[in-house]
C-alpha cells in the first residue's frame, strides 16, 4: 500500500467529528504587512499582491515551504469580481504545496475573525490539523463598475443575436452611462456611512470629544512603544517601502487631535465629536494567522501561543436606528460570556477593534449601563467596567489603520503573543464590529 500524502495524519485517534473528544485549536503565530493609508504606499499593490505577501511571510517565519496546509481561509471586503478565488490564487502564488485548499470568507470588517474562528472549529473537530486564516483589503485596488443602466445596455448587447438587436442595444447608450460607480462605505439600507452611523451612537451614549481623543492618543502611543521595543518584529514583515504602519503618529498630542474639525455627524453642530483623528482612515494591508492542533505544532517544533477558545457572532437591527450600527459586539460578548461561564472582568487583555474611538467607548459604556444590560442584553446585572489598563495595550486600529478584512488577523496574532507572554491560562477577549449591524467576538487563552 502506498502512502497517500493527502491523508489526514491525526495521531490522537478518533476525530471529534467521528465521535472522539474535542481537541484544542492553537494559535501558532501570525504575520501581516505593515498597514498603509489608502492611495499611498500601496497604491499600485493589489489585494492578491498583499495577501500573497502576508502568506509568504508566514510561511517563511514558520518554515512551511512545500508544506500542505489543511485549509486557508481569507477574504477581502472590497474586491473585484474576477478575484472570486482570491485566497486560492494567492496560495498558488506562495511556496506552500499547491494542493493546499483555500476558500473565501466575507462578513465585512469581521471577515478575518470569521475565517480564523471557522478554521479553529474545524481543527477542534478533527477535520483539519493545520490552517491559515486571515484577510486583506485595499481601497487603492477598489474595483470600479459600470452603473446599473450601462450594465443593462451591455448585457442586452451581449445577448443580441442579430445586427438589428445590436444596433438597438447600442442606441440605448447615454453619456451618463460612462460614469463608473465605486464601492462606497455606505450602508445600502440607510444611505449613511459607517462614520455617520457611529456619530449617532456616540452622541446617544454621550461620549465626549476628549474621551475619544484620549483613546486615539493612547492607541498611537501604545503602538509606537510596541514597535520601539520590537514587539511587532515577529508579527510584521516589511512590504514595499514600509516597515511600520504609516498611519502611526508616535508624536501625536491631545492638542493636535483637539484641533481637528468634526468629520462625521456634522449635522449635530456643536455636539459633533468625531474627527479624522479619532476615526480610522481607509487603509490597505493583509494579515494571516497560523492555526493548528497541538500535535501538528509539536511535530514541527512550532510554538503554541494560545488556544482559540470560542467565538460568537451577533447582529442588531440598526435599519431605523433601533440600535447603533456597530453595537453588535456588545450583544455577542454577553452571549459568549454566558456560554463560557465567565465575567467581563475575567480577562487579562481586551482587544476591542477601534473602528472609531466612539465605538469602543460606547460599547464599554453599554456594558456598564444597567438599563442597556437589562433591556437589551436580558441580564440581571450590568456586565460592568473593565480595567482600562488592559485595553488595546499595544495599540489598535486607530493607530495601525483598518484594512477591513485584515484586522481580525492582526488582532488575533497580537493578542495570542501577549497572552503567551502573560502565561498559561491568561485570558483575552476580542471584539470586532462590522458593517450591516454585525460583529464577532472571541476568547483566546494563553499557553
Amino acid at each position, binding site marked *: 500500500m502506498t502512502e497517500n500524502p493527502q491523508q489526514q495524519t491525526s495521531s490522537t485517534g478518533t476525530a471529534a467529528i467521528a465521535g472522539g473528544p474535542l481537541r484544542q485549536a492553537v494559535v501558532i503565530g501570525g504575520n501581516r504587512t505593515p498597514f498603509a493609508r489608502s492611495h499611498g504606499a500601496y497604491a499600485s499593490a493589489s489585494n492578491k499582491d498583499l495577501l500573497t505577501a502576508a502568506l509568504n511571510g508566514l510561511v517563511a517565519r514558520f518554515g512551511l515551504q512545500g508544506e500542505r496546509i489543511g485549509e486557508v481561509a481569507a477574504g477581502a471586503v472590497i474586491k473585484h469580481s474576477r478575484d472570486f478565488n482570491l485566497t486560492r490564487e494567492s496560495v498558488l502564488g506562495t511556496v506552500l504545496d499547491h494542493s493546499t485548499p483555500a476558500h473565501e470568507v466575507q462578513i465585512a470588517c469581521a471577515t478575518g475573525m470569521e475565517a480564523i474562528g471557522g478554521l479553529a472549529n474545524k481543527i477542534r473537530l478533527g477535520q483539519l490539523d493545520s490552517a491559515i486564516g486571515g484577510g486583506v483589503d485595499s481601497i487603492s485596488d477598489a474595483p470600479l463598475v459600470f452603473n446599473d443602466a450601462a450594465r443593462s445596455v451591455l448585457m442586452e448587447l451581449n445577448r443580441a443575436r442579430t445586427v438589428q438587436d445590436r444596433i438597438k442595444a447600442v442606441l440605448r447608450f447615454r453619456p451618463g452611462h460612462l460614469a463608473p460607480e465605486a464601492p462606497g462605505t455606505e450602508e445600502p439600507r*440607510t444611505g449613511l456611512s459607517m462614520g455617520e452611523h457611529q456619530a449617532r451612537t456616540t452622541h446617544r451614549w454621550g461620549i465626549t470629544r476628549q474621551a475619544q481623543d484620549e483613546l486615539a492618543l493612547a492607541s498611537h502611543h501604545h503602538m509606537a512603544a510596541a514597535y520601539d521595543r520590537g514587539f511587532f518584529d515577529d508579527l510584521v514583515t516589511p512590504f514595499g517601502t514600509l516597515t511600520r504602519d504609516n498611519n502611526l503618529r508616535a508624536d501625536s498630542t491631545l492638542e493636535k487631535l483637539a484641533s481637528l474639525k468634526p468629520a462625521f455627524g456634522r449635522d449635530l453642530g456643536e455636539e459633533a465629536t468625531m474627527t479624522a483623528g479619532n476615526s480610522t482612515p481607509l487603509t490597505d494591508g493583509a494579515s494571516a494567522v497560523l492555526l493548528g492542533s497541538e500535535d501538528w505544532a509539536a511535530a514541527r517544533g512550532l510554538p503554541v501561543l494560545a488556544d482559540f477558545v470560542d467565538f460568537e457572532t451577533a447582529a442588531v437591527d440598526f*435599519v431605523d436606528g433601533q440600535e447603533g450600527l456597530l453595537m453588535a459586539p456588545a450583544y455577542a460578548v454577553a452571549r459568549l460570556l454566558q456560554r463560557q461561564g465567565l465575567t467581563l472582568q475575567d480577562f487579562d487583555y481586551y482587544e476591542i477593534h477601534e473602528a472609531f474611538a466612539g465605538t469602543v467607548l460606547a460599547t464599554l459604556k453599554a456594558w456598564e449601563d444597567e438599563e442597556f444590560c437589562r433591556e437589551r442584553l436580558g441580564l440581571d446585572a450590568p456586565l460592568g467596567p473593565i480595567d482600562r489598563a488592559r485595553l488595546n495595550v499595544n495599540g489598535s486600529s486607530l493607530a495601525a489603520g483598518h484594512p477591513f478584512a485584515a484586522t481580525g488577523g492582526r488582532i488575533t496574532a497580537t493578542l495570542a503573543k501577549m497572552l503567551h507572554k502573560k502565561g498559561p491560562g491568561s485570558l483575552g477577549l476580542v471584539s470586532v464590529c462590522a458593517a450591516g449591524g454585525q460583529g464577532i467576538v472571541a476568547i483566546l487563552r494563553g499557553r
Partner: protein
Amino acid sequence: MTPLAASYRAALSTAARDALLRRRRPQSLPARTLLVHDHVIGEDLAAAYAGLFPATGPLDPGDLPSVLVHIAGFPAAMDLMAQADFPMPLLGMVHLENRVRHHRPVPAGVPLEVAASATGLAPHPAGTTVDLVITVHGPDGDQPGEGPVLLWEGTSTYLGRGVRLAGHPRVDRRPREAFAAPELTARWRLPASTGRDYAAVSGDYNPIHLHPLAARALGQKGMIAHGMYLAGRMLAGREPAGAGHSWSISFATPVLLPGSVSLGVTHSGAGTARVTEVTAWNARSGKPHFTGRIEPGERPTAIRRPRSSGRPWRPS
C-alpha cells in the same frame, strides 16, 4: 383604462379651451364613480417597481406593495380629474396627503376591480382641496354570497391653488409650526433620474418630475420627486407581510432633484402592534419634506384627519 398621458393631454386641452372661452369651471364635484374591471397588475410591472428600491430586494408577487396598488388605480383618478366637469384644473394641483388602508394582500396576475371617485371638496388657506378615493376589490370571497373582497382603499388629497368655490368660507392660514428634526437614521441620495425612473414604472409622466425646465415652466423651483415615489421608498421594507395595515403621508415641501433627503424613523410598540413614524427633511434648509406613519390594523381615526386641525405642512 385611460392612459395617464391621455389624461394629461385632455387636461391641457381643457385648460386651453377654458382660457380661450373664459369658461368657468363647475362649482361641484362630478358624482360619477369611475370603474375599471379586470385590471391586472403584471409581474413584470411588479419587478420593475421592485427595481426602484434595490436595497430592499425583490417583492412577493402574492402581496404587492401599497404604492404599486396605488399606481394601478391612479389613472382612473386622473381620468376623473382631467375632465371638463372637474371643478379645478389638473395641471398645477398640489399633492398634499395620502391615507391608505391596505386590508388584505393584493396579488399580481389576478383581475382587480378599481373604482375612483372624488369627494370632500373643502376650503383651504391657499385654495380648495379635494379627496380622490380609490378602492381596489379582488375576486369574490370564500363565503357564499360574499362578493368581491375589498383589498385596498386609498385617499389622496390634492390642493387646487387659488381655486375658491362659491359658498365656501375663507380659511385663515395657520402659523407655521417650528420644525425640529428628529434623530437622523437614513439619508436618501436621489439622482436626477429619480422622477424619470418612477415615471417609467408608474406611467406618471407629469413634466414637473422629468426635466428642470419643464418643472420651472409649471411653477416649480426645479424638477421634483413624485410624492408617491417618496411614499414607496418610505414603505419599502417596512410594510407588514400579509397586509392588514394603514399608512399615511403628508407632504410639506417638494424634494428637488437631484437631491438628498434626511430621514428620521422611529418605532413604538412591538411585534404586530408596531407603529412606525417617519420624518423627512432637507438638511440644508432645515425644512420638512414629509411626515409619514405606518401602523397595524385599520385605524380610521388616524387615516381620516379632521379638516379643522392644524397640519404640520404648508403648501409651498
